[in-house]
């Protein structure tokens, strides 16, 4: 069995825990606790890590790790990035400055993004609101980072599988 480690990171409330829950074949390990931060607009928040698994055929398995979103947990980002072969950056479109959010994760994970595979996923997209999807793509170009930028609903299993496909294609071409 060949196993690959994939991490899901990105802004608070963007759906990292949900994405892993949508596709994991095992009951996911979750470390979400009661949030005391009223500014993030949800009751529970991940403080440690999420963990799930999904098989790809008979011979391959993906280990899915979710990180906490808030920057005070950046030490967990460093721990979880070790040995990862791909990173999914989820950006909540409804937060005050989604481009600034994206910049934070691009900056922290730049070594991983350069050396492995990456997909940027805009979640909770309100299509009439800026920044538009092409603004995110343009932002990536300015940062000289090349990877797919898509919008998706991570509650939908098929859409999360599509995100993994985009990662796997990059992983195969890099091998």
């Amino acid at each position, binding site marked *: 069995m060949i196993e690959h480690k994939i991490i899901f990171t990105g802004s608070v409330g963007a759906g990292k825990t949900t994405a892993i829950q949508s596709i994991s074949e095992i009951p996911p390990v979750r470390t979400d606790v009661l949030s005391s*931060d009223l500014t993030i607009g949800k009751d529970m928040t991940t403080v440690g890590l999420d963990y799930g698994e999904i098989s790809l055929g008979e011979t391959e398995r993906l280990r899915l790790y979710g990180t906490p979103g808030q920057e*005070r947990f950046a030490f967990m980002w460093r721990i979880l990035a070790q040995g990862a072969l791909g990173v999914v950056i989820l950006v909540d479109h409804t937060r005050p400055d989604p481009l600034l959010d994206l910049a934070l994760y691009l900056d922290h994970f730049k070594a991983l993004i350069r050396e492995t595979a990456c997909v940027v996923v805009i979640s909770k997209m309100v299509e009439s609101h800026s920044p538009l999807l092409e603004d995110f793509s343009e932002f990536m170009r300015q940062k000289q980072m090349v990877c797919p930028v898509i919008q998706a609903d991570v509650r939908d299993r098929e859409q999360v599988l599509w995100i993994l496909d985009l990662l796997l294609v990059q992983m195969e071409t890099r091998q």
Partner: protein
Amino acid sequence: MNAAAARTAPPRSSPKSIDDDLRAKAKSLLEQFVNQFGGVGVWGAVISTVDGFDVAMASMPEAEGTKLSAMASSISAIGDMAVQEVGTGKYHQCITIEGADGYIFILNISCSAGPMILSIAASKEAMLGKLMYYARQVVEKMTKA
């Protein structure tokens, strides 16, 4: 604003559900706790929310207490998962991290204002029995707070 600027001025969103009275009580409990050791063994202590915000600290630089709060919250949550996975309970009661020069103890507090965590930094000279006895008293008093 770029990412570097965002890092130097993080949006410090402090929890509003914890009122000043509770913070003051937590602070006084921690100060009593630290003073019990008269500067021998115990370096400092911090009480934090389970999502990693400091509520009160004693004998600890603020930057250290803030960082330790976030780390203790991750470690504590993973500790709870491990305890549940192995079937030794629902929540951990204490996690001990032993370094070359000292210890970090992390204890769960089921406070009515919301679950919290007590973290204590101690040296190798600390009397562990005494430390744990007084630490559990802090937990108990905070639980009733």
